[in-house]
């Protein structure tokens, strides 16, 4: 709980005083697999979600909500409602790398009961902006530290990776992203769990309070090698988890 408080404070502090407000919507396929003494269970289903963020050139903060129904793919496995609330802040250490910290609250609800987990996370975001088109490729890795929650099984640690690409034009931008979250449980439970997701979506317009509305697109302009014209690492808004 203490860790959660610290991370929440970090998120709040990272919120820029003045910046662009960004919106994003996405949908995708979530595939949850777990194994325990009873065998392998698998649930799969469509999830939809979105996020609201504020960003400045050096930092960004976002809050996101996802949800959907995961249908059982193995026998004796119930269908599950899935919901996830994410709050995250990122500080850009360099144009191509940022330090991210946040918290994920996720819940699985089934006729058997509801599991709620709180997963604090820290990690690094790597950005590779494209030159030819507005867009970027990105990769991030996170460690899930000190998870807590309700339910029979509470994870003790976990890792998460995310890789994707944004690509667009002046009119529209789309992104595709792959996520994998792997959780570890006490060895006494002999339980492994992972959730893989494939998401596609589009960022909405970026709104600068008091100013005009801008599309979340930008293109790196490269004209020559002189310092004044070196490419600036202007990137698209990264979809929040």
């Amino acid at each position, binding site marked *: 709980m203490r860790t959660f408080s610290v991370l929440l404070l970090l998120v709040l502090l990272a919120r820029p005083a003045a910046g662009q407000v960004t919106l994003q919507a996405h949908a995708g*396929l979530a*595939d949850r*697999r*777990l*194994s325990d003494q009873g065998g*392998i269970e*698998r649930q799969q289903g469509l999830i939809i979600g979105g996020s609201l963020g504020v960003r400045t050139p050096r930092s960004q903060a976002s809050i996101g909500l996802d949800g959907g129904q995961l249908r059982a793919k193995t026998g004796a496995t119930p269908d599950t409602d899935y919901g996830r609330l994410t709050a995250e802040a990122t500080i850009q250490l360099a144009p191509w790398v940022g330090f991210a910290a946040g918290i994920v609250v996720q819940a699985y609800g089934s006729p058997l009961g509801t599991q709620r987990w709180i997963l604090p996370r820290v990690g690094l975001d790597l950005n*590779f*902006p*494209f*030159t*030819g*088109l507005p*867009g*970027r*490729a*990105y*990769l991030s890795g996170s460690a899930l530290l000190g998870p807590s929650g309700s339910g029979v099984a509470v994870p003790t640690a976990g*890792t998460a*990776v995310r*890789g*994707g*690409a*944004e*690509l667009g034009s002046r009119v529209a931008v789309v992104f*595709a*992203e*792959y996520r*994998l979250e*792997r959780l570890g449980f006490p060895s006494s439970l002999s339980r*492994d*769990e*992972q959730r*893989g997701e*494939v998401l596609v979506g589009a960022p909405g317009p970026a709104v600068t309070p008091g100013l005009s509305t801008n599309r979340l697109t930008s293109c*790196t302009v*490269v*004209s*020559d*090698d*002189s310092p004044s014209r070196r*490419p600036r690492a202007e990137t698209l808004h990264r979809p929040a988890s």
Partner: protein
Amino acid sequence: MHLRILAGLLLVLARPLAAQTAEQLLTQAREAFENLDFEGAARLYTRVLDVSTGAAEAQRDTAQLYLGVSYEFAGQRTDAVSAFRTFVRSNPCAPTPDQFGASVTAAFVEARGSVFAGGVCAIRSQRLARGDAATFRVAVTHRAMVRAVLQDSAGRTMADLGEQPAAGISEIRWSQLPDPAAFGTAPVRYSLLVRARAQQGTEVAEGIVPILMHAPPADTVAHPLEPPDSAIRPERRPTGPIAADIAKGLGVGAAAAIASAALAHGSLKGESGKGLAVGTAISFGGLVSFMVGNGRRDLPENRAYNLQLRERWTAARDSVAAVNLERLGRRPLVIEPAEPR
């Protein structure tokens, strides 16, 4: 050995001593002349004219004139006329020496009437603009046809100033002047040769004087410098950053695919397909970005900027060239007398 050294010393000292002697003789002759010892003065002036004295041309002219005057004052008219005749041959432009009185004038006029001489008078410095004509004064003792030519230092005829009738002191005009642009700032030496042919008889006379010609430098404007490379903007984007899009897409795509396989629980698996699919999509995105970017490498705004920069420079250069050409064309041609060699 001692005799040789003595002979060498004599040779070295001979000319200064001779010059000094001519000056001394002239002084003595002038004193005799002023003391009305005209016969003594005539003897001394005759000695000045001796080649061994090494008298300068001006000293010889003075001696020759005063020799005639001394003879005339000594009552030796024939010798006076002879002396004046010699003087007129080498000084056709010299005026009649009226200051010595009527008898000397009469002797001088007689001498001038009995000899055919012609030549160029002293050259005046002239600063000639385009379209001007240079003028030279020539003198002949009798009516004659006078032809003037300009020769270079090798004796080649550079310009023919034409032939014209002359009597006494006349002026020859040179209107077809050379282009001053052909001359540097350093003076070039020429010779003005005048040939006089008596209209009656077959006598000819010739005179030659050295002249210098040059064109002073014009106050030209410096040409504008060509725009440096640093001022020229690239007209196409470099390929490197755009090509890197492929690497970015492939790298992140591969990382996503590898992560999906490596991080999944060994017992659960099932993620490789999704990771590979998204990884492929990421790679494809990089490829698309490269292809689109490669097709948009032209920078028309930079091309227009460079064109404008070059046109501005070209206009400035042409303007300066026109101004300089005009200023160079206005350079005067300067003609000056030269020291005889």
